[in-house]
């Protein structure tokens, strides 16, 4: 494309990144993906052996530990099955690939729209005189490209109409107080991968996932209501406003559940990525967890003891029950 990239990978780059079927994470190269899968999804919890596939782990558990593997660890809720044989990117069903690509593309254009909104720069395609979406050639359906082109045009139109007017108009329309209408996060960040609900028409990818309302723990920032999908003008200001698309949500939840423990290898992979690709990967990851769970791992967690008496043993309590009590002279 000739233009300098300003640290933002273009959509081809994003789409070419290998990613993990089980947890939707993407990686710099296939080696990292495979070592991630061995560490997070195909590791034997009895002896630590790392297998290449879920099937391999199942056989290992059976033969070595005489136990049955029922699900893949650390996987998204609907991807724990053992039926699909995954190795790296091999074996991922076509429809799942499509879903993933759509998600990446949507995230990309959302992030781009945000950058434009933040910087005031015109979209690359328009100012450079390039035909919109002409160069896109990957497994994405034609229809989607068209939609993206429309979206770009929308953004451009919005630019032309003057950016300041839109949110003022949109906020009261949603019946929100001014405080709520403010973006919940201080400033849009470059490379921020979150989708803007309403920025693009709803896509079929979401259909396979259960609704996850209530997945956010209490105490996180109250989220403003999702704007109706027609009000594209408000989109950049509400990029965090509605529920994220469900795949994103699942990923964010999974990241949160990973907790402070986080696998070493995984951490290393993340670090390596952060080094290679400063900005996008790291900031995105941190924000994802933050938006999803209110920094779950920072929260001081309470513990609950199933037996809490520090003076009297369970046996002494049981000995007091009529069922077991011993009285001298009986029996």
């Amino acid at each position, binding site marked *: 494309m000739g233009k300098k990239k300003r640290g933002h990978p273009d959509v081809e780059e994003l789409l070419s990144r290998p990613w993990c079927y089980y947890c939707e994470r993407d990686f710099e190269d296939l080696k990292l993906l495979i070592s991630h899968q061995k560490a997070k999804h195909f590791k034997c*919890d*009895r*002896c630590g052996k790392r297998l290449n596939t879920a099937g391999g782990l199942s056989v290992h558990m059976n*033969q*070595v*530990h*005489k*136990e049955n593997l029922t699900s893949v660890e650390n996987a998204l809720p609907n991807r724990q099955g053992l039926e699909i044989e995954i190795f790296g990117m091999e074996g991922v069903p076509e429809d799942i690939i499509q879903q993933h690509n759509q998600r990446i593309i949507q995230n990309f254009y959302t992030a781009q729209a945000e950058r434009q909104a933040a910087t005031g720069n015109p979209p690359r395609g328009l100012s450079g005189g390039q035909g919109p979406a002409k160069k896109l050639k990957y497994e994405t359906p034609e229809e989607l490209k068209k939609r993206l082109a429309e979206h770009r045009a929308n953004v451009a139109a919005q630019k032309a109409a003057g950016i300041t007017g839109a949110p003022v108009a949109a906020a009261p329309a949603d019946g929100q107080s001014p405080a709520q209408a403010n973006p919940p996060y201080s400033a849009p960040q470059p490379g921020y991968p979150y989708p803007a609900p309403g920025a693009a028409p709803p896509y079929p990818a979401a259909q396979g996932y259960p609704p996850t309302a*209530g997945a956010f*723990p209490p105490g996180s920032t109250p989220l403003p209501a999702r704007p109706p999908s027609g009000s594209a003008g408000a989109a950049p200001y509400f990029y965090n406003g509605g529920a994220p698309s469900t795949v994103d949500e699942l990923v964010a939840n999974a990241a949160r559940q990973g*907790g402070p423990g986080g696998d070493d290898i995984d951490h290393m992979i993340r670090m390596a990525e952060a080094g290679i690709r400063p900005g996008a990967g790291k900031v995105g990851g941190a924000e994802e967890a933050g938006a999803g769970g209110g920094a*779950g791992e920072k*929260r001081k*967690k*309470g*513990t*609950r*003891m*199933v*037996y*809490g*008496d*520090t*003076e*009297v*043993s*369970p*046996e*002494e*309590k*049981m*000995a007091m*029950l009529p*069922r*077991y009590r*011993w009285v*001298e002279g009986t*029996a």
Partner: protein
Amino acid sequence: MAPAAQFEAAQPPKDAISSLVFAPGPSRRLLASSWDKNVYLYEVSNGAEEANLVGTFEHRAPVLDVCFGADENEAFIAGMDHQVKRIDLASGEQTTVGKHSAPVRCVVYSAQHSLLISASWDSTLQVHSTTNASQQPLTIPLPGKPHALAASPSKLVVAMTARLVHVYDLPTLASAASSGSNNNNPPQPWQQRESSLKFLTRAVACMPNDAGYSTSSIEGRVAVEWFEDSAESQARKYAFKCHRQAAPEDEGGGDIVYPVNALAFHPLYGTFASGGGDGTVALWDAEAKRRMRQYQKFPESVAALSFSGDGRFLAIAVCPGFETGMEDYSGEGRTKIFIRELGETEAKGKGAK
């Protein structure tokens, strides 16, 4: 492939199990004491993967502990009815060998010194010399109620309320017990320690090599420490969290902490197993400070554990755990005994790193 199989003992006790112990040496006999007032004797059959009930011995009150005596035909039990009894497993004959003024919590037999030690909630230890039955037992007052008792070849560890731990020297106890009862001047503990764990001690087990012991508490934690009183040895002691589960997010998160009900050292490798209220059993390498294995969850809380004398089998007693707030309890129908045949290197540690 090395053998690694798990099977269930036939005809498990009808109520919760208080203790489970394999006979010493190559014997495959296994005793279980139960709150249903019986002691059950099982034998793991040769070859086939099964354990059959050989006999039951009825007591008049719940049995809180059981141990083997000098051989696989002698057993001692601790009764809720304040009695310590000897059972001849061959003839079924039962004789009372001691009496406390409160339920007897633990019994331990030291083969090296032919001593039977019982610990009761009347806050005393009784030391019985089994070679001379006519001898009055030696009574040692304790500063608190005992909850767990374990013997190594030369030491006896008593864990009490208020986190007190006393270590007695067995040869000293043996000579005091045989020199005629001198209950006015009982032997003093060889060491008095404070538990390394902040909560009530649940179980104690001694290293078979006489170097130290481990304790566990109601608060999902296990400590390992050494007998030797040098600063160097004491610096080696450590404790770690285990038998916990993350609570679901919608219940506020955090950890659910289970008591660690049982500890057992492997007779050969110096590794040990812990069993908790979460229904899991884990194998630990005491030297390398590592978890070697965690077995698949059992359906109920793990109440007791025992390795066989040759280290080939691990017996696991499973019954509902008593939890805070329970007003009634029954282990009926939910009590089971599992026996795991270990692979050749399954319980072998890798050594300190």
